[in-house]
């Protein structure tokens, strides 16, 4: 597994963690008296900031862990360079495209929920959910492309 694949795997798990947290919070809100605007928007902020922070920390930790493992394996102080080449860029771009399509579908579903009489808060909840799901789908598609090639 290459450095990029490991990075994407970490990103995938962090996104799964965030989506799990988000859905559990929504479920709790539903149990304790429905969706309240103030709570939903504070959850939005927590989730958005959470995604950013968890991704940054995840990337840093992956880099540190891989460097330590490399040093132990090779028993040298030589720091391994992680090259990002044209194939990585291409796979990244394809992942972005998949993410964009998935998010567009999510936005459409959110709009449709509003059009079919659901309260606006449901639409906002679906919007944030679709953005995280789009990231997860993007990570999965990138991992698939790394494995299968193209």
């Amino acid at each position, binding site marked *: 597994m*290459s*450095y*990029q694949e490991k990075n994407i795997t970490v990103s995938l798990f962090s996104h799964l963690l965030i989506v799990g947290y988000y859905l559990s919070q929504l479920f709790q809100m539903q149990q304790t008296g429905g969706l309240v605007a103030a709570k939903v928007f504070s959850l939005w902020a927590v989730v958005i900031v959470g995604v950013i922070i968890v991704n940054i920390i995840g990337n840093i930790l992956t880099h540190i862990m891989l460097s330590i493992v490399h040093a132990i394996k090779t028993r040298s102080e030589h720091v391994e360079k992680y*090259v990002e*080449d*044209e*194939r*990585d860029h291409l796979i990244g771009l394809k992942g972005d495209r998949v993410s964009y399509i998935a998010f567009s579908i999510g936005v459409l579903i959110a709009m449709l929920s509003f059009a079919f009489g659901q309260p606006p808060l449901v639409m906002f909840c679906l919007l944030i959910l679709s953005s995280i799901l789009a990231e997860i789908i993007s990570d999965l598609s990138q991992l698939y492309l*790394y494995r*299968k*090639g*193209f």
Partner: protein
Amino acid sequence: MDKYKVKNNIRRLRFNYDEMTQEQLAEKVGVTRQTIIAIEGGKYAPSLELAFKIALVFGVPLQEVFSYELEGDEK
């Protein structure tokens, strides 16, 4: 319509070039070993620039490294 595919002789050229490893070739052309593995396995068609770099490493013309053939055709 016939389907064409980029094929390559990198494995043979590496062997003839002092049994160069994939890692060494990757370092010389500035990509990861995974990319060399993908190119050798026919899973990834490199950019023109990378193709020229690989040919330069072996000191052979581009068409000796890569060929564009009908899928399924073996030399």
